[in-house]
């Protein structure tokens, strides 16, 4: 008897759960951007918020949050630290947005996610004057802009540098041709010449983008609406990398390299040139490093002169489902302030989005690569801005990888890439 009752209860519970669930399925997100921007511009929406970010390596985030919380005891920020893997972070955000839960009021994200999230109505539009003013790096602002509207506050930025062995190279190369000539020096010293990131993952998109944009090519049109990769310039750019593999100027093992593997190849003294992010500076210059005092940095090479880096970095977005949007907006704005950005540079050891900090003597003292980085950032090109970024990037990676492996010719790879990109942006 008792059992029957209990089972009946369970059954009723199941029915309730299923009923609830069926409600949720029509509300699965994907709302129009205009729906996602409710008229919450009034004084409402002030209160405690949750800030979700990737793993913080340095303790800078708790410090920043403490600073804010002391100033705004009524609008406390709670810190939610997610996985160290960007893919895992993105999955967490996507699921939260799709469920429209508003658990994360402010999310941090790779610059390429801004368009993806904004187009799906998951982000709250922000005031350009407040978060994208003249004091912020133009390339970073561009990365936070989609469809003529600013959707996120640039928080930190990043561009690649060419690391080289200053004990072996007097004048660093500014073009690919010069760099490849210098490979003779590598051979004399029984070293590999050049290393970058060529495994099939996001890093390859970044490297291929640099090769192609430095040669004057592009993947998509400026507005992201049409494919532009099927050009002689793009072919020339990719061909350069393929030739370097063919001629042994890039180690065959580099086909498996991500940031860490390529950095290791430079740090153990076996590679002459390395394309990587500024973070390598710390490990290379610390005591006990094989190459301490024997390396320097410059901007990436191009065809006729210095090339352009892909733009990395992090933008802060306000969730369209947040209950305290006003506080969330104030918080992201404050995170761009001089006060907060100084913590970013000195504690977190990341590049600021504020232009004035690159020439600040105090900051240059801490990070001597800042002037080079600024130059790299001035020429930096954002990766394609499109709501289908992930599919676009996959199309780039797969075809560039096939060409680097020598499975297909560069011409064929670019033609297929164009066709795949066409599908990717159409979807």
């Amino acid at each position, binding site marked *: 008897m008792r059992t029957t009752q209990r089972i009946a209860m369970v059954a009723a519970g199941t029915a309730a759960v299923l009923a609830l669930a069926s409600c949720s399925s029509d509300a*699965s997100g994907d709302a129009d951007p205009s729906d996602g921007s409710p008229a919450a511009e009034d004084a409402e929406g002030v209160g405690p918020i949750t800030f979700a970010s990737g793993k913080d390596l340095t303790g800078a985030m708790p410090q920043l949050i403490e600073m804010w919380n002391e100033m705004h005891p009524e609008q406390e920020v709670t810190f939610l630290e997610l996985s160290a893997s960007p*893919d895992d972070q993105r999955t967490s955000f996507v699921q939260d947005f799709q469920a429209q839960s508003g658990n994360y009021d402010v999310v941090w994200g790779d610059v390429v996610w801004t368009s*993806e999230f904004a187009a799906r109505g998951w982000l709250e539009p922000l005031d350009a004057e407040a978060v994208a003013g003249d004091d912020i790096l133009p390339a970073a602002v561009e990365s936070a802009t989609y469809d003529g509207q600013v959707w996120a506050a640039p928080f930190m930025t990043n561009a690649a540098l060419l690391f080289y062995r200053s004990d072996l190279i007097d004048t660093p190369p500014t073009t690919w041709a010069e760099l490849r000539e210098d490979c003779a020096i590598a051979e004399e010293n029984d070293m590999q010449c050049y290393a970058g990131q060529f495994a099939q*993952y996001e890093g390859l998109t970044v490297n291929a983008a640099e090769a192609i944009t430095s040669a004057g090519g592009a993947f998509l049109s400026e507005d992201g609406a049409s494919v532009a990769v099927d050009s002689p310039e793009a072919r020339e750019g990719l061909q350069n990398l393929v030739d370097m593999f063919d001629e042994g100027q890039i180690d065959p093992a580099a086909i498996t390299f991500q940031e860490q593997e390529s950095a290791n190849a430079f740090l153990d003294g076996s590679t002459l040139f390395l394309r990587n992010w500024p973070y390598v500076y710390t490990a290379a210059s610390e005591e006990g490093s094989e190459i301490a005092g024997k390396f320097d940095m410059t901007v990436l090479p191009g065809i006729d002169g210095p090339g352009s880096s892909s733009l990395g970095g992090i933008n802060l977005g306000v969730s369209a489902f947040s209950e305290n949007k006003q506080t969330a907006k104030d918080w992201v704005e404050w995170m761009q302030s001089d006060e907060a950005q100084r913590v970013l540079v000195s504690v977190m050891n990341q590049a600021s989005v504020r232009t004035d900090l690159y020439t600040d003597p105090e900051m240059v003292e801490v990070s001597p690569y800042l002037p080079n980085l600024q130059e790299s950032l001035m020429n930096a090109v954002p990766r394609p801005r499109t709501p289908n970024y992930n599919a676009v990037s*996959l199309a780039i990676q797969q075809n560039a990888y096939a060409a680097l492996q020598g499975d297909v010719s560069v011409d064929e790879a670019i033609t297929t890439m164009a066709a795949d990109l066409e599908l990717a942006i159409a*979807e």
Partner: protein
Amino acid sequence: MSLITSLTKRQPATTSSDPARDIREKDGRLAFWLVVPSLIVLTIVIAFPVVWSFVRSLYGDGIGATPFVGGDNYANALWGNGSAEFWDAARFTYFFTAVSVVLEVLIGVAMALVANRAFRGRGLLRASVLVPWAIPTAVAAVLWKWAFDPNGIVNAVTGWDLIWTGAEGPSTVAIIVADVWKTAPFVALLVLAGLQIIPEDVYEAARLDGANARQQFLRITLPLVRPALLVAILFRLLDALRMYDLPAIMTGGANGTTTLSVLVVQSSLSQLKPGYGGALATLTFLLIFITAFLFVRMLNVNAVEQAGVRTPRKKDSE
């Protein structure tokens, strides 16, 4: 009296008398109450998401609007734009499954036989067999990823100079090695438990009849552990066909090592296309279902029927 009932209860299908039918009804009622809790739990956990995914797969993935598109997502995957990708993934998934499951069974059974007969070192053996299975897959994948690095331990030990994760063949080998190492113990543990309930008398009797070791294995051991072994293979099959973490971590799906599950994640989570992803998930489910069905039919893996030590009976169809 009670002896008779208990005997008929053991073999009701062969008895067509009335008491048997009574028993069957009584059995049915009891069975209902024993099985229903599990079914309810699974309905909540699985039926709901599966139905959700299926329904979602009938809708498009446009930004801003998700119209009803019927079978378009399926057509796309099977013979449309996504077909090359889908069939490549299916081909790799099946190849990977076939090779790794066969190796896992061979190694797993060998391990179990040795473990079952070992006098000394039994504890150590048991513990060692458990180790690969107990290491979290994500950690094991990282271990193997670095082991198969061009400068890694595998090349160092073998003296080869292979770029394992830089081409299709070696990548496949690397993933299979990692999977076999990780899951052969699963097969071994199940078979070992099956071996332990074989009475020693059976072997004694066989030896008296002059059976040699090979005959003993083929005529006694194998038939008796068959149910456990088949269940182990079946579950390995299902798991391998849904393989995700090893390729995701070791190669990121590059070099033709994209499995069906990697494709599902790529579509539904990475590319934010839950409709297409739902279709891929449903297709994967169908492929696995058909495979499992054929496996069960061909090898007669009928847990209902495979009594192992029971008197042979006719198939008791519902």
